[in-house]
């Protein structure tokens, strides 16, 4: 079982989290053209190795997280809050 270190709650079991998706997608503006929306919604890399993915601490503080994880070894390298301002705040309070 994976254990993910939530910046707010600490190290918790994978069962407390739900997987979101590819964390490296930059979603286009709501009025962007169809092609960029198509790419953002449907095109995914199938990464062998390190990838950034989103997870939500759904049975905890409900933060959305950016998790860098190895898809082969399941090793987790970093966990950050997806909300940039919150992450900065957490780092400042360290």
């Amino acid at each position, binding site marked *: 079982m994976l254990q993910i270190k939530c910046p707010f709650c600490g190290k918790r079991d994978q069962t407390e989290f739900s997987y979101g998706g590819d964390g490296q997608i930059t979603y286009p503006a*709501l*009025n962007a053209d169809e092609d960029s*929306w198509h790419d953002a919604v449907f095109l995914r890399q199938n990464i062998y190795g390190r990838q950034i993915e989103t997870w939500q601490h759904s049975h905890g503080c409900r933060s*959305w997280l950016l998790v860098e994880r190895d898809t082969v070894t399941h090793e987790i390298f970093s966990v950050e809050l*997806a909300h940039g301002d*919150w992450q900065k705040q957490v780092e400042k309070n360290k």
Partner: protein
Amino acid sequence: MKSERINNVLHPPEITEDLIHFYWNRKKYFARKGDSIAAGLLANNLNIIGRSFKYHRPRGVMSAGVEEAGALVTIGFGARTEPNIRASTTELIDGLHIYSQNAWPSVKHDFGSILNFLGRFFAAGFYYKMFMGVPPFEWGRGTRIWMFFERFIRKAAGLGKSSRLPDPDYYEHLHTHTDILVIGSGPSGLQAAISAAKTGKDVLIVEQDYIIGGSFLNQQDKKELEEQEKLLKKLGVTILTHTTAFGLYDNTTVGLIEIIPSEGRKDLDKKPRQRFNICRANNVILATGAIERVYAFINNDLPGIMSVNSARAYLNRYGILISKNIVICTNNDSAYETAIELKNAGAKVTILEIREQIGDILLRQISGTGINLLLGSGVAKAEKGFNNSTISRIKIVEMTDKGWRYAGTLFCDCLLISAGWSPVIHLASHQNFPINWNEENACFTSFGDAKSVFLVGSAAGIWQQKQCINSAKELFKYNSKQKYKPSLITGGWEKPIAPLYEIRLASIKGKAFVDPQNDVTTSDIRLAHQEGFISVEHMKRYTTLGMATDQGKMGNIIGIALMADALNCSISQVGVTRFRPPYTSISLGALAGRNRQSHFKLIRRTPFNKFSLNNNAVMINSGLWQRPWYYPVQSETLDSAYIREATITRKSVGICDISSLGKIMIQGPDTTEFVNRIYTNSFNSLPVGKARYGIMLRDDGFVFDDGTTWRLANHCYLMTTTTNNASSVMTKLEELLQVRWSNLNVQITSVTDQWGGCAIAGPNSRNLLSKIVDNPVEISNESLPFMGVKQISIQTVICNIARISFSGELAYEIYIPSDYAHSIMELIWSRAQEFDSCLYGLEALGTMRIEKGHVTSAEIDGRVTIEDIGLGRMASMNKDFVGGVLKNRKALTHSHRPQLVGIFPKHKNKSFKVGALLNEAGRLNGHPIGWVTSVTFSPALGHWIALGFIEGGLNLIKGKNIVLSDELRSTFLDVDIVSPHMFDPEGSRLYG
């Protein structure tokens, strides 16, 4: 084979307190406290314990450990029957009932043993080939022959039978956290735990056996064990016996199963039977030991043949001399100590040494003991006696320049084998840590990941006890800054092992077993190779070698060696199959724990639950929620109840629990902008004190959810969602706010559980409400118009009320603080008695919304666009919203897409069901042009009606004859396709 108890100083004569009894196939026997089942059976000279998996060959005790493949028994009876119990590792409890398995009429005279002579039909791949027909004419090709033979095969193959009765016991889940988890309590494990505890760490040591000690227990001198045990307790190390670490998972999470000894369970109903313990450790030390191997020779599965070390265990741990006429066949140094001990205990011992030379120290040790040593010799075949099924003589071979040569017969009634040792690396294999073939010691070894998982002792391929203990000490010499490097000194014998996996002579025929538990023979392996299964993973699956409960403990290496031989390559080139959890079999009950029956999933009850039950509600599961389905009066059926409830509601007034709708509070300066981006329709213009129905799409442009959102204040909205999507909408909104739109200053909170929701619907709803609210003026048509929202007080409790309608009647939704919900509902219901009124459930709610053509999750199933459900006009052209771009994709705007319609049967007395298809008359075959999503009897219209989708919708279907077909129920009806707004399409009733 004749075993006997020895009464020496270490094992004083039986005293009555030590005497226990048990039943073997219903006959009473006696044993000693502390015996394993196998020890108890052996002490009573019960040598044939079971019949084998495929060939029904008689099997006896083959080991004293988890690798046991012969002595598998069933214990207990009735609902507490446990099949396939390893007699070698299970404690014999006073009064235990033990039964033999897979034998009829008895284990000594088993009818199924005839299968032994039909062996060629049961070779590797038998089941696969069966489907391909029997050569030479491919007779019975296909499933027919399988179906013919199946009942015989199912009866004959297999092991014990489990009980069909419900499990009367319960099982617990436990979560354990520790700094260091040590698995195995032999010399290395105990030392590792002690060294770890001395560094101040929190240490847990687990042992699958019912007492700690591991290989210490098999030795005559137990002083060292006693000292280590004392130290362990002094250091406060937690010890769990009866506990198997069955799997190693990510992040050094270890699955433990603790079998609660039945001894301490006089009160059977109050204690769990097993504990599934999920242990999270910072470091895991595998001190799991090694398993002594046998090798393949003809009849190597006869009762009376076991590993050398198990004879030592029975001698020193249980005080049983296994036989007085013993032959030991070995290729390594480890067997000699046992040989001497057996000799001293009074047995005649002959050693057949595969090697042509042994070391001087070893020679000195056995000289003068009276042990007969034959160098360069081995066993090629074991044979049973004339009037019993146990071993009585062996065919021995000697080594020549040209290989093995037959060298005569030797009589014995017990044969002990040591063909080397296999470190237990299963848990390292679970995590795919590197595993290497150690040529010198003829075994696979692993060092874990050398970061958080380490192997010590014989689990790391170290053979001498002293070095094993040192390897455990060494682990803690390194502090966190130094990297641990295992000293790669494995082995430790005076002279190296002579690798041996099989002795085969062309002149001697018979079955030689590789994996006795699955009845896999050497010829199965060769056949698999011959048929092209050259990868070791394929070979494993084709032959079933090392599969299932065995997990390669016994025969894996022999199988791999034979494969390497057939492929003419080295064992390291063939490689090892990956072991899978569980290491030993575990019961499903333990994995389920308490999450069974009503605890299988959560139950969510609304604040009106008690009220509904008090009023005779029949409940229905709706997701996790328990919702009132209908409220039968006396013996009313569902159908008559919902028809009555819908009728009374449309005629006068009905009350419904709608608490399960998702409720999300949205606040903050950017709230209006946020809500406006979520919904397809505009919320910019929604004034405070008003609600609006909204549709939200997914990114891909399909409809996600719908609901009303109430503007309570300038920067405060209450969003309602469908029951189904409450949590996914919440998750989506959080994702948008945190991941994509973190610049919006908006806070959202789920308040679903904080408010009890109650719909009051029908022409009398306002009249009823005015008798309930503290100030009736507040709910007048002027003060609370259609889609109006406000706070009102009921018995001074502040509630939120909105004049919105799902039923199409004049209706209100009141959200009452959950703590007051029950009592206010009772007030409402008591005042409702002044009217023709009813409580209505989910079924009547559904009826009224179908009549009105309102969609729910039956229609919004993730495949429909906003146009498909006829709400295209709600997609604003003047603003951007989620899904707004991709909803306009070409295929999603095609005019032939299935669209929401209403469906009437042409013959008004006909009924039909959900799931039926719609076709054009005369074209019932092929792809349908539509389908039915919701069906109800409409009390308002007086006949059955439905909602569904049909290609092109109402416009394109005009003039065509449509047939509703339900092939499964043989229903074929002519239907009229109508507008989905089947009742009161103008909505005049909304305004009362």
